[in-house]
């Protein structure tokens, strides 16, 4: 099949966008989860 490398490039590029977006959201969510735990701990300690 001709042009197969273009097809591959398109699919890789497309899915890369979705993956990168999901990964960036997931990482920020992880960081926030840790922050929430930290704040909750400091609150319960100060009680």
């Amino acid at each position, binding site marked *: *099949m*001709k*042009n*197969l490398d*273009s*097809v591959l*490039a*398109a*699919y890789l*590029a*497309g*899915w890369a*966008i*979705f*993956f990168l*977006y*999901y990964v960036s*959201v*997931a990482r*920020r*969510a*992880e960081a*926030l*989860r840790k*922050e*929430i735990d930290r*704040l*909750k701990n*400091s*609150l319960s300690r*100060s009680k």
Partner: protein
Amino acid sequence: MLKTVAGAAILFVLIAFTAYLAFNYAPVERTMGAIQKIFYLHLPSAFTSFLALGICFYANLMYVFRRQAKWDWLGVSAAEVGLAFISVVLITGPIWAHPVWGIWWTWDARLTLTFVLWLLYISYLLLRSMIEDPDKRALFSALFGIFAFLDVPLVYFSIRWWRTQHPQPVILGGAGSGLEPRMRVSYLLVWVAFTGLMILLIKARYQLEAMRADVEELRRETEVR
């Protein structure tokens, strides 16, 4: 952590499924050959992006009238995800066009409209980054989002009329021509999969916003102590 892995797993399954449909199930197109298979990524992305932007519009309206933060969270999530899908359309288009027509870009009606749409929603996100107060940010970006959405059909019609009067080689036309039933099924199923992908991504982004609000709340509580 488990939720993230589960999400990534679903993502992977969706990719594999759509790839299978595009490459194994759907037959090879007669005139264009394998390059046509890019359409299974290109077209469903376009439709899904419209869906996402419609959700953004609804969320914007809801925020202006109800002023509940959750609508603002939904609005920004839908706008970002919609933007991701539009970006896929904008990238797969030229990758398709180059081997077929020898040029990367052309100002045909669909691509131009997609690019303007992309600009509108980038502006929406940029506006949000330029307003610090959360309530003001939510309100004024929602108002801009409403105006932007109202503009979309107008942009579509003006570009279409303009292009029918000054025609260009129809680069991305003919997508609906000669649709074998297996192709039609493939398009439909990929679109369903993409809608699922959209929901997954919006949910993840929405939860991020909700967590941000939690952090703010907790920070305020610790300061009070």
